[in-house]
């Protein structure tokens, strides 16, 4: 999945930075605090751009290379921002054998950007996710956290239309 350095300008605020620094100060002496710090940073900013990684490196004393290494290792950490509307199609086994691959393709065709990327206007991003655990509803798609179950490719345009206005 593409997780390269983002081209989108960083728009972090001093409030966000203060919140992150406060959290780091509270937790940095605990054993194995790096992951919770990165998770908190992503919660605050929505993603982990270089600017945020630098703050974490400076505040914790952990080399930036190591922070970058961790941020790129885990699928959950994003170096790119997410779209205003986030679409995810589950590609877990239960969904896959019931045709979620075709659903994803339909989403990609409808929105016009690849899975794992964001449209140039920043409005939509598409992700192929691992099992979200709603296997009884397979195949499953989520849009901004709203779950759509028992999907067929034919249902995709109808559902996405309401997010396009």
């Amino acid at each position, binding site marked *: 999945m593409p997780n390269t350095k983002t081209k989108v300008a960083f728009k972090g605020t001093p409030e966000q930075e203060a919140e992150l620094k406060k959290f780091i100060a509270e937790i940095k002496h605990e054993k194995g605090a790096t992951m919770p710090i990165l998770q908190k940073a992503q919660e605050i900013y929505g993603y982990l751009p270089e600017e945020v990684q630098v703050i974490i490196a400076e505040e914790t004393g952990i080399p930036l290379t190591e922070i970058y290494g961790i941020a790129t290792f885990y699928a959950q950490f994003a170096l790119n921002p997410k779209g205003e509307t986030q679409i995810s199609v589950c590609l877990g086994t*239960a969904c896959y054998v019931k045709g979620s691959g075709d659903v994803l393709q339909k989403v990609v065709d409808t929105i016009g950007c690849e899975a794992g990327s964001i449209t140039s206007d920043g409005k939509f991003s598409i992700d192929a996710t691992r*099992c979200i655990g709603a296997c009884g509803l397979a195949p499953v798609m989520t849009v901004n956290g709203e779950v759509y179950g028992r999907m067929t490719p034919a249902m995709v345009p109808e559902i996405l239309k309401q997010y396009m206005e």
Partner: protein
Amino acid sequence: MNFARAHIMVCGGTGCTSSKSPEIAAEFRKQLEAAGLADEVKVVQTGCFGLCALGPIVVVYPEGSFYSMVTIDDVKEIVDEHLVKGRPVERLLYHEGADHHGTVHSSLNDTDFYRKQKRIALRNCGRINPENIDEYIAFDGYKALEKVLKTMQPQEVIDVVKASGLRGRGGAGFPTGNKWQFAANEKNDVKYVCCNADEGDPGAFMDRSVLEGDPHSVIEAMAIAGYAAGAHEGYVYVRAEYPIAVHRLNIAIEQAREYGMLGKNIFGTGFDFDIIVRLGAGAFVCGEETALMTSIEGHRGEPRPRPPFPAVKGLFGQPTLENNVETFANITWIINNGPEAFAAMGTERSKGTKVFALGGKITNTGLVEIPMGTTLREVVEEIGGGVPNGKKFKAAQTGGPSGGCLPASLIDTPLDYESMAAVGSIVGSGGLIVMDEDNCMVDIAKFFLEFTVDESCGKCAPCRIGTRRMLEILNKITSGNGTLEDIDRLEELCEHVKANSLCGLGQTAPNPVLSTLKHFRDEYVAHVVDKKCPAGVCKDLLNYSIDPEKCKGCTACARACPVGAITGTVKEPHTIDTSKCIKCGTCISKCRFGAITKG
């Protein structure tokens, strides 16, 4: 305490929550209030009932009436009819059989789905409110911990676990008692207990269900393990993708601390134990025990060579006892009911029960807990309700990306560690995906390999490079460019990756390929020699055509085709230009006469 005359249990598992069960529970409270029954009837949000295919699920006690696929609009009818007038709403009760049109059962336990099950690890799921420690205590909760701390020596606890025959439920099936013994044998002041809740196998969700439906059973078992091994601190490493499980686990830990079941001087015995929750961040390899510990320590979750084993040198370099969620969920039952009762279930070497996550082409998708040794046929045909839409059972894939498949000819295989290993598959974490004749086995092997290639951490070359080369060969085969030598080369490569990878991820990554090669070699050969995909899945090998006999010339397909590949005159048979066709399948879904075929 208020005694209610009836209880409405609304499933609060992830599946049912996705289909709006919290809103349904709220509506029940509203309607009960309106009917003046708010004091008499209690609404409880429980953990998962297991029959996820039919969610949202609502069960009304004392009758045990089992309502499925309830919508918000149905709530008023259930309250008015069932709770006011005492007449269960037949229309909404669970109907058994294919496509859910068969026998109606008024009670949960009479259904085929539940009758053959034996719920040990899932005993409280669907029975209690997981966010209320009092309900857990009412069902013998924390009794085992008290018994252990007050009346047993650590070695006695280990001996009980050994006698039960319990083996690790995370996949490898290592005897749990031995693992506890190794950790207890280490002489060290600091030791850890670690709970592996990084359930990454796509299609397995029993650990999530336990944490969502009965988090205290894991907390209690971890404290018992701590006492047995001499540890005072526990870590639960849980997937961040499971927000409901994380939320309920945190609530449960908080309540356990309040009640003195965690913290200092538990039950006044001088034993201290506490638990810290750490979230994963979406890396499958972290389900491997050494990688999990590396991740908790705050690094890239790469595995470490064993030995030293975690029991000797684990988390933060200290001796660590690590078990999976489902393994822990069995512990208190074993202490309370005795190891003999547990060992009485299952087979000679695979004791107790195992939870399987049934998914794919099966009527009753969901979680089932069965005694080890139950046959695949019983699970698929009786508990699972068979393959829907009149299709034939083709194979069951078990153990996810580390496992293999059982073809229809092996449907009488008992589901236990030894029998499954003998036919080239594994029990694994318990994912069980059913496939019908429309699934291509080469495509399934490719699906799992894409997963492992994506999730390989990259530390060792056999896994990092080997799995990628394997995937390239599979892509070559499914695109119609494969040769028979490719199949041999693929098989050879599988053996090398299996033998030389550092951790379980790489060592088991070839399994889906090897087992499909073993049982469905003819499908591989069909892709290579005939350039055909018998199941009609691999797009590069498909050609769509219109049967002129059946085509009425309605133009529905031509209008729907996104690339204008279909032409024809109205009321005359149409044709498909295969050079333009992108094989999207839209035409098939639009045709009302079954005139379009792929093959």
